[in-house]
């Protein structure tokens, strides 16, 4: 049976979401960028007015400004992008359960064998129409019989367009395109192919697969199949994407951390955010990992398995701190720190009763953490903080948190603070 695969690609997703939130940005050149002061200043996404000036994704903001003097730079709001991404996937899942995400803003849909689905191109147009009407975003859709060609189709015409690459027309549409447009042909492969004079997808398709195997290994054969429309990689089931292996966060502070107090404040802020994300995703972790890098750029990574699972800031921060103390020799100040949690289980899986249930005294988040989560959800991450974070050096952790969304005004001191470190 001929497969009916759609690839949906949101047009300049981050920038589009910002324009939904701030309609006044629709008519001016704008881009989503990192924070220049912290030297994270690159363009993450831009709207079409900015693109007209030649602004490119991933270039430095100062370069973009030279091309486009009036460029409006908006800071990234990843929580908004995740929110819209979830809405989009909910919409796709109304058509099929075989929905394979490829990042936040792209995905494949397999409509093969779905009853009453009809012409996949009509479904593509309907999805575009609904995304526009319900979420005020635009997307491009490729319709084809393989994942690779569907992806090629969604890149073919932008914005807000449907491109059909069929068995009848793929030679006319796909083969003249540069070989670099093919998924999985990166810069290195492209250079290698150019050396044997392969510059278009059609030229790749015309090669002998045996020769490509010798030249590029098994990937050569896979690319050859991709170019000929014979690759049969399946669209994964939507549920299979849901396994999260680890949740972590790291930071390079604006000034180096000079002592354990500095490190503790950073670890606490990182752990607070990691624990919050675990709770939001209903996960608990059994392994706590840290990595640290000194100002000499040498780093180490260590981990510890707990005998219980946790989603609590306290547990994560204290374990991370003891790992740090046991392993850092203070030959130089600390430049970057990361806290990561792994061996995750969903709180659903935690339903399995254990003989050691009595040992698991910590049944997930404390009441105070649940309240903190709710306050933060409503008023933003800085609405409520630990006392130690109020007096924290802003060169380490700004306002005691690492996230971007600021706002709010109150704070709380948590009872039961350990004596050796201030909370």
């Amino acid at each position, binding site marked *: 049976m001929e497969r009916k695969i759609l690839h949906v690609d949101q047009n300049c997703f981050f920038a589009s979401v910002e324009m939904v939130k701030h309609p006044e940005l629709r008519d001016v050149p704008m881009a989503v960028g990192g924070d220049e002061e912290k030297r994270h200043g690159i363009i993450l996404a831009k709207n079409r007015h900015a693109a007209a000036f030649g602004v490119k994704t991933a270039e430095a903001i100062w370069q973009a400004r030279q091309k486009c003097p009036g460029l409006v730079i908006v800071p990234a709001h990843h929580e908004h992008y995740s929110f819209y991404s979830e809405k989009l996937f909910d919409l796709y899942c109304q058509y099929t359960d075989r929905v394979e995400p490829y990042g936040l803003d792209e995905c494949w849909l397999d409509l093969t064998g779905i009853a009453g689905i009809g012409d996949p191109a009509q479904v593509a147009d309907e999805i575009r129409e609904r995304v526009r009407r319900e979420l005020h975003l635009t997307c491009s859709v490729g319709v084809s019989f393989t994942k690779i060609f569907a992806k090629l189709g969604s890149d073919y015409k932008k914005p807000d367009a449907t491109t059909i690459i069929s068995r009848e027309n793929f030679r006319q549409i796909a083969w003249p395109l540069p070989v670099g447009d093919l998924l999985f042909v990166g810069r290195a492969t492209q250079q290698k192919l150019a050396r044997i004079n392969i510059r278009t997808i059609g030229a790749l398709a015309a090669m002998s697969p045996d020769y490509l195997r010798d030249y590029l290994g098994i990937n050569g054969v896979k690319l050859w199949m991709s170019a000929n429309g014979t690759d049969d990689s399946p669209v994964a089931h939507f549920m299979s994407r849901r396994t999260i292996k680890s949740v972590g966060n790291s930071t390079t502070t604006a000034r180096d951390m000079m002592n354990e107090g500095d490190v503790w404040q950073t670890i606490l802020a990182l752990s607070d955010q990691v624990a919050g994300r675990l709770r939001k995703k209903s996960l608990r972790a059994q392994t706590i990992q840290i990595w640290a890098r000194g100002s000499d750029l040498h780093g180490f990574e260590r981990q510890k398995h707990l005998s219980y699972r946790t989603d609590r800031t306290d547990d994560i921060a204290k374990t991370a701190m003891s790992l740090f103390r046991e392993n850092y020799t203070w030959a130089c100040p600390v430049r970057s720190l990361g806290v990561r949690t792994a061996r995750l289980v969903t709180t659903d899986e935690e339903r399995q009763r254990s*003989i050691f249930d009595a040992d698991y005294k910590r049944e997930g988040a404390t009441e105070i953490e649940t309240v903190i989560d709710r306050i933060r959800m409503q008023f933003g991450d800085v609405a409520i903080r630990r006392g130690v974070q109020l007096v924290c050096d802003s060169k380490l952790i700004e306002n005691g948190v690492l996230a971007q969304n600021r706002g709010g005004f109150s704070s709380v001191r948590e009872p039961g603070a350990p004596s050796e470190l201030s909370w």
Partner: protein
Amino acid sequence: MKFMCSRDRLNEAISIVQKAVSTRSTLPILDGILIEASVSEGVKLTGYDLETGIEAKLEADIKADGSVVINSKLFGEIVRKLPEEFVTLETDDRLTINIECGSSVFSIKGLSSEGYPKIPEVQDAQKVILMQGVLRDMIRQTIFAVSTDESRPTLNGCFFICDGFSVEMVAIDGFRLALRKQAIGSDLPVMKFIVPGKALHEAGRILDGKDAELVIYSSQNHILLDTGKVRIVSRLIQGEYMNYKAILPKSGDTTMLVSSAVMLSAIERASLIILSEDRRSPVQLTMPNDEVLVISASTELGTLREEIPVSIRGERIDIDFNPRYFIDALRVIEDEEITIQFSGSNGPCVLKPTEGDDFAYLVLPLRR
């Protein structure tokens, strides 16, 4: 060293000792098999990964004493592919091993046996004699519940208890418990120790001959299983084993009689729609009346509902389980009819024989 032997016997001995040869060791000599030949004691092959050691005797016609260590993987593959049944092994003074069979002659570099670690002697040992088949079954019936979670090392093995009359083996992985008890005789030594799961797993694959005897020797730190032909030595796990008797409920609120085969196949059918990596979706057991147990499961793939005949006494309950835990236990139970004892919808459930105490499989449910 020089001896002649049968290719098939040699192959057999190699595959036995290979179970204890480490695959990724930091010491190259541990990737090898120690071959020792002496006219008085015969030929002996040894594999040892510093935790489990296995020795196998080999019938051979010995011409000259000696010993050498040879890479296990290579040796095994060579012997498997030898053209004829009769093999001659000979080492020269530079430890090159010549393996001669039919018209083919391999010359392989060996290592000196001097660097090979000694398998510990099991001294001041107590001993129990068992039938090989009995121990093999007891291993099979408990080993699946041995924990692999390294944060509780004592649970990484089977607890072996001899009370003077019977032998009992217990395994616990935190979510379930498996217990097998076998009456052996009288006047046996009283002893208890924890054997690493890995050693038992290998032993289970080596033991055969239902009617052949096996001697178990145990000392403070080690256990030796001796079949006469094969000796398996393992270190013991040190530490206090969990008080498993406290976990096993004395009685339950609900007692159910059921055919183990009928229950097994129904739960296996239910597990077809529960993806193995999905530990969230349970199989649900409900009791609409005292004669019927409803087994049901529901996932993204679909649903199953099945009724099986049972006989229930006591409170009727509604409970969720990981089907894997039931399947593992039911597969190794040999009794046609069993008793399942429940303790409410959140309490443990125990699979037991209708009479006696030869086995007990405790399974904990999923919280509602």
